[in-house]
C-alpha cells in the first residue's frame, strides 16, 4: 500500500467524483441523457475500482488500530474544529466496498429500468449524489462529517423518492421521508452538540475509546447515545418513525431496491456498529434499542402479512429485518458480545433484499402493476431468471440453509439466546416465523396462479391503486431486460455463497475467530420456525386446495389493525394536522396578525387618531399662528426677565 497521502487522495476521489458528476449533470448536461449517463457511469466506476483496491490492499488495520487520514476542514475555535477525513478499518472498508458495488449495480440496472424516462439525466445525477453521500458516510472519520453525509443521504433519498414529482403521492412521500427522518436527525444533532460541548471531540475513535474505558460520565453517555439512536431510528425506520419507509416505495424501483433496502436504511444500523463500544457502555440505551427494535420487528412483520403491493411487502420486511439487526446489536452489547452478528446480518441482508427488490422491479416493469395478485393472473413462471432469483432471495430472507440469510439469522439468534431473559429470542423466533410466512405468501401466489374462475378472485379483483410511474412500452427482450437480469444473477450468486464466508469475514472484521459451539436446540427452533412459516404459507396460498386466505383471517379485528398499519400513519397525520398546523401554527399566526402586528398598527392608528383630534387647532390661518407664536415668545421673555 502506498503512503498515507495516497490513501487520502484515493478516498477523496471516491467521495468527490460522484459529487462532481452530480454537479456536472445538474448544471451542464441535464438535457442530454446519454452524456449524463456516461459521466455518471465513469464517476461511479472509478470509485468502485478504488474502493475494492483499498479493501484488498489495506491489510494491516483492525478495529483497535484503524488507519486515519484527515485534514482540517473547519476551525472555528480551539474547541470547535471539524476535520475532513477518513477512518479506514475492516468495518468501514467492507462497507465501502459493498456500497460502491451496490451504487454501481443500481446504475447498471437503471439503464434498463429508466430507459426513455424524461428525467433520465436528473435520475443519474441524484444517484450520483446518493453515491457520494453514502460513500462518505461509511468512511467518515468524525461524527460531524458522518452527520453531513447522513443529511445528504436524506436529501438524495428525498429527491429520488419524489423523482416522479408530478404524482402527488410521490412528492408527498418524498416530503414525508425527509421530514420524518429529519425528526430523528434533530435528536442526532442534539446528541452531537452535547457530545462536542461536554466531551470535546466528535472523533469516532475517541468516542469509542471513551465508551470502552468508561471515561465519559455515565449521564452524558446515556443521553447522547439515546439521542444518536433517534437519528438511527429515523434512518433505519425504527418504531415509531418507521412510517416513511413504506411510502418511500413511490420512488423508482431500483431506488427502492438499493437505497431503501440495502444501503441507505442500513446506515442507521451501520452507525450503531460504528459506535458499538460507545453504545455498549450504556445498558439503558441498549435496553431501549432492544425494546424498540423488537416492536419494530413485530409491527412490520404483521403488516407484511396483509400487504398486497409487492414492494410494500418487501418494504415491511426491510423494516422488520432492520429491527432484527438492531436487536442483535443491542443484545450483543447487553450480553457482552461483539457487533459481528448484527453487522453480518446487515451485509447479507443488503445482498438478498436488493435481489428481492430488483426482482420485484422486473415484475413491476413487466406487468405494469405493483399488486402481486394481479401479477399472478399471468403467473410469474415464464420470467424464468427473476422467478428463480426471487425464490433464492425469499429462501435467504426466511433463513433456509444454505443461503446467506440462514447464517446471519442464526448468528443473531445466537446472540439473543445469550440474554438472561429468553423472551427476546422467543419474539425473534416469532418474527422469523412471520417473515417466512409472508415471504412465501408472495412466492406461492406468483408461482401458482389460480384459474380465472377460482372463487378467491372475488376478493382480489379490485386492483390496488398503485401504478408504475412511467409510460408502458414493449418489454421482455432486448438489452434493457438483460441489463436488468445481470445484477439479479450477480446478487443471487452472492446470496448463495456469502453464508459460507461467515468465518473468514468474522476473522477479517474482528481480527479473531470465535469458535462457534453449535447450539442445536436453537438451530432446531429457528429452522423450525422458518419451516413452519413456509408450511403454513403453503397451506394458505400454495397448495391446490388453498383457499387464498391468510390464517390471520380468523382474527378479523387483528387483521384490520394490521391493514391500518397499526394506525401509525393515522397518528402522525393527526399529530401534524392537529398539533403542528392546528395548534402551534394557528395560534402563532393568530398572535402575529392580531397581537404583535395588531399592537403595532394600534400604535400607528392611535397616533393618527390623536392627530385628527388635535387638528382643530390647525386653522391654517396664518395670522393666528403668528399671534400664538408672538404670545408664547413674549411670555417666555417676561418669564426670563423676571428670573433676572
Amino acid at each position, binding site marked *: 500500500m502506498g503512503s498515507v497521502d495516497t490513501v487520502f487522495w484515493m478516498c477523496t476521489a471516491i467521495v468527490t467524483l460522484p459529487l462532481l458528476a452530480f454537479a456536472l449533470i445538474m448544471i451542464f448536461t441535464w438535457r442530454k441523457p446519454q452524456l449524463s449517463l456516461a459521466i455518471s457511469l465513469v464517476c461511479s466506476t472509478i470509485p468502485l475500482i478504488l474502493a475494492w483496491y483499498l479493501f484488498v490492499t489495506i491489510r494491516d488495520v483492525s478495529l483497535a488500530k484503524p488507519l486515519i487520514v484527515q485534514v482540517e476542514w473547519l476551525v472555528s475555535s480551539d474547541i470547535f474544529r471539524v476535520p475532513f477525513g477518513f477512518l479506514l478499518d475492516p468495518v468501514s472498508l467492507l462497507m465501502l466496498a459493498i456500497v460502491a458495488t451496490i451504487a454501481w449495480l443500481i446504475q447498471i440496472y437503471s439503464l434498463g429500468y429508466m430507459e426513455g424516462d424524461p428525467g433520465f439525466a436528473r435520475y443519474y445525477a441524484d444517484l450520483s449524489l446518493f453515491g457520494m453521500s453514502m460513500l462518505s458516510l461509511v468512511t467518515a472519520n468524525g461524527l460531524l462529517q458522518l452527520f453531513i453525509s447522513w443529511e445528504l443521504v436524506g436529501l438524495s433519498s428525498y429527491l429520488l423518492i419524489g423523482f416522479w414529482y408530478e404524482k402527488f403521492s410521490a412528492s408527498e412521500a418524498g416530503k414525508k421521508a425527509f421530514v420524518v427522518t429529519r425528526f430523528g436527525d434533530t435528536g442526532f444533532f442534539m446528541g452531537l452538540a452535547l457530545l462536542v460541548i461536554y466531551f470535546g471531540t466528535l472523533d469516532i475513535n475517541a468516542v469509542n475509546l471513551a465508551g470502552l474505558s468508561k471515561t465519559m460520565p455515565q449521564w452524558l453517555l446515556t443521553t447522547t447515545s439515546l439521542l444518536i439512536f433517534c437519528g438511527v431510528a429515523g434512518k433505519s425506520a425504527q418504531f415509531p418513525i418507521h412510517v416513511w419507509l413504506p411510502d418511500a416505495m413511490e420512488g423508482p424501483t431500483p431506488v427502492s431496491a438499493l437505497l431503501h433496502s440495502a444501503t441507505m436504511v442500513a446506515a442507521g444500523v451501520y452507525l450503531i456498529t460504528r459506535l458499538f463500544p460507545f453504545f455498549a457502555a450504556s445498558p439503558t440505551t441498549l435496553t431501549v434499542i432492544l425494546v424498540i427494535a423488537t416492536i419494530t420487528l413485530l409491527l412490520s412483520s404483521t403488516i407484511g402479512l396483509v400487504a398486497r403491493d409487492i414492494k410494500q411487502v418487501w418494504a415491511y420486511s426491510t423494516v422488520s429485518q432492520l429491527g432484527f439487526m438492531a436487536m442483535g446489536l443491542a443484545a450483543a452489547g447487553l450480553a457482552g458480545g461483539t457487533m459481528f452478528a448484527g453487522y453480518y446480518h446487515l451485509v447479507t441482508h443488503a445482498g438478498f433484499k436488493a435481489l428481492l427488490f430488483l426482482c420485484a422491479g422486473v415484475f413491476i416493469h413487466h406487468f405494469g402493476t405493483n399488486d402481486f395478485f394481479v401479477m399472478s393472473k399471468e403467473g410469474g413462471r415464464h420470467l424464468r431468471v427473476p422467478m428463480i432469483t426471487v425464490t433464492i432471495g425469499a429462501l435467504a430472507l426466511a433463513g433456509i440453509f444454505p443461503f446467506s440469510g440462514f447464517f446471519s439469522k442464526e448468528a443473531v439468534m445466537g446472540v439473543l439466546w445469550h440474554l438472561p431473559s429468553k423472551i427476546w429470542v422467543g419474539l425473534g423466533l416469532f418474527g422469523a416465523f412471520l417473515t417466512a410466512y409472508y415471504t412465501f405468501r408472495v412466492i406461492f401466489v406468483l408461482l401458482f396462479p389460480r384459474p380465472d374462475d377460482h372463487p378467491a378472485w372475488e376478493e382480489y379483483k379490485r386492483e390496488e391503486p398503485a401504478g408504475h410511474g412511467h409510460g408502458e412500452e414493449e418489454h421482455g427482450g432486448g438489452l434493457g431486460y438483460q441489463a436488468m437480469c445481470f445484477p439479479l444473477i450477480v446478487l443471487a450468486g452472492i446470496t448463495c455463497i456469502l453464508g459460507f464466508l461467515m468465518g473468514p469475514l468474522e476473522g477479517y472484521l474482528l481480527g479473531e475467530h470465535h469458535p462457534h459451539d453449535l447450539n442445536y436446540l436453537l438451530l432446531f427452533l429457528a429452522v423450525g420456525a422458518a419451516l413452519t412459516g413456509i408450511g403454513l404459507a403453503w397451506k394458505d396460498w400454495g397448495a391446490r386446495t388453498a383457499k387464498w386466505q391468510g390464517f390471520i383471517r380468523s382474527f378479523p379485528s387483528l387483521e384490520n389493525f394490521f391493514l391500518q398499519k397499526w394506525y401509525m400513519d393515522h397518528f402522525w397525520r393527526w399529530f401534524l394536522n392537529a398539533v403542528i398546523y392546528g395548534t402551534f401554527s394557528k395560534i402563532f399566526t393568530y398572535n402575529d396578525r392580531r397581537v404583535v402586528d395588531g399592537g403595532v398598527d394600534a400604535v400607528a392608528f392611535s397616533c393618527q387618531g390623536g392627530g*385628527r383630534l*388635535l*387638528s*382643530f*387647532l*390647525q*386653522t*391654517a*390661518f*396664518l*395670522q393666528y399662528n*403668528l*399671534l400664538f407664536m*408672538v404670545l408664547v415668545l413674549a411670555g417666555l421673555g417676561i418669564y426670563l426677565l423676571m428670573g433676572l
Partner: protein
Amino acid sequence: MLIFNQLETYLYLALVLFAIGLYGVLSRRNLIAVLISVELMLNAASINFMAFNRFLAPHPAVGQVIALFIMAVAAAEAAIALSIIMAVYRKLKSINAEQAVELRG
C-alpha cells in the same frame, strides 16, 4: 443734541418700529401689507444692531456687516414672498390671508 447721543433713543425708535410692524403683521389681512410690516420689523432689528454697534461694540464693523446682511436677506425674502403671493393670487384670485386656509385640519 444729547438725545441723539444716547443708546436708549435708538432702542425706543426700534421698539416702536418693531411694535408697528408686529401689529401690522398680525392685524392686516392683505398679504402685501403683511410683507411690508415684516420689512418694518427687519428694519427695527437693523437699527438695533447699528445702535449697539455704535455705543457698545468694540469693533465698529460688526453691526454694519450684519445690517448689510439683513438688507440682503430682506431683499431675497421680499422676492420670495412676492412670488409666493403671486402664486397665491393665481390660485385664489385674492391676496387675502383669510382665504389661504387650504391646510385647515
